[in-house]
């Protein structure tokens, strides 16, 4: 076969990942059939494979790039849901299988719209010989537009409408809401102003997994700036947080702890 389709579609992209080896469309199929967990998929590996595939070509295939971005963002979304199951359920009622349905639906929808756009392009080309006048004829009478009496309260309502803060819609399910790191920085600093040390696990008990993760980031931040010292007796044991100046007398502190 001569090169009728010189560029393989994104779904034919060959992948060689730890959890999966084969073309992208097979990976999608397995995801849709739930034979692979989204969390097992190395998205960075897929991106790398795609970039290599691009580098092999002389020209950039923008359509393939667009399709790839849609696929990858859908995959990332699936993966993010799987990583935070509770939060995902809180933010959105979608179950993982529903999310997979959603992926297939979105993919199909986007593909149909691309096809519709291609139809419009063809149509535009076919209609290029049709010339018609835009706007009024040179010797046409002027159109008078008259408006019935209006209520002034409609103006007030329109402005009130513009002053309503927007509802959090559409993309909210994509974004896991992270509390600001600064919130925990301030909280831990205040805590250490009152006490010389505290137990991280006790302090974040009862927070959501996302909040705990952000709190831990805050901890690392404070450690980096030298404000605190961290200690842990063994992996998975409680993390002790203390003022940095306490670190100077570690010998007996650690033993007496």
């Amino acid at each position: 076969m001569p090169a009728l389709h010189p560029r393989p579609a994104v779904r034919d992209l060959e992948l060689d990942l730890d959890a999966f080896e084969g073309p992208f469309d097979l990976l999608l199929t397995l995801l849709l059939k739930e034979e692979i967990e989204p969390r097992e998929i190395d998205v960075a590996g897929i991106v790398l494979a795609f970039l290599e595939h691009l580098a092999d070509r002389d020209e950039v295939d923008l359509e393939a790039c667009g399709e790839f971005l849609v696929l990858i963002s859908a995959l990332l979304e699936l993966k993010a849901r799987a990583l935070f199951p509770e939060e995902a359920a809180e933010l959105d009622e979608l179950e993982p299988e529903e999310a997979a349905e959603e992926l297939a639906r979105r993919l199909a929808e986007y593909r149909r719209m691309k096809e519709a756009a291609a139809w419009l392009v063809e149509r535009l080309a076919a209609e290029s010989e049709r010339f018609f006048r835009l706007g009024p004829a040179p010797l046409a009478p002027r159109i008078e537009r008259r408006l019935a009496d209006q209520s002034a309260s409609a103006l007030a309502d329109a402005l009130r409408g513009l002053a309503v803060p927007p509802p959090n819609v559409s993309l909210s399910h994509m974004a896991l809401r992270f509390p600001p790191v600064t919130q925990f920085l301030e909280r831990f600093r205040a805590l250490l102003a009152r006490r010389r040390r505290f137990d991280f696990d006790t302090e974040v008990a009862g927070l959501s997994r996302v909040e705990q993760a952000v709190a831990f980031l805050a901890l690392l931040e404070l450690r980096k700036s030298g404000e605190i010292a961290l200690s842990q007796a063994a992996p998975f044991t409680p993390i002790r947080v203390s003022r940095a100046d306490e670190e100077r007398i570690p010998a007996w502190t650690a033993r007496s702890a």
Partner: protein
Amino acid sequence: MDSPLRLIAQNPVDRLAHTVEALLVVASAPLSVSELADATVDDPERVETALRLLGERYREGRSGIVLEQVAGGYAFRASRDAADACARLFERPVERGVSQAALETLAIVAYLGPCSRPEIARIRGVAADSAVASLVERGLIAEAGRESGPGGAIRYRTTPLFERVFGLESLAALPRLDDLGATEDELRSRLIEVAEARAS
């Protein structure tokens, strides 16, 4: 119903056809049968008969002026034979340089009906702001209220100019999406077939 009847008796169809062609030559957009019937104070069926007469006379190959049914009404345009001469004198500003992004956006708005920018962005996977702005500027789409009342995002619909530029009698003349390519189910079953073929 006295005076319209009298009018009809006084006004044979070829006279009505003269009036209709006069209206069409000055109109700035396609005119529907009911608009023509209102303006001529005549019967819609008689207007349709007059339009058929005019369609015979103003048709491709026979006349430089062609009557076409487009965008929910009737309008005159130049014959295709005159396209080269028209291209020398007139620009087609509406169509010049419509980007791929704009065409995808246009397809979404045409097929899904009134749509907001966030909805378009969700389907295309990228922000639609500049595509929407360029389509509004070309007059191919227009604002159509806001999503669910105040505070909602502005929604857009296609304009009659869109139908006219693309030569559509109405939005119903768009091809069904199912005819254009794989549906969701087809896509899924194709994927599963591939998987099974590989597994065996």
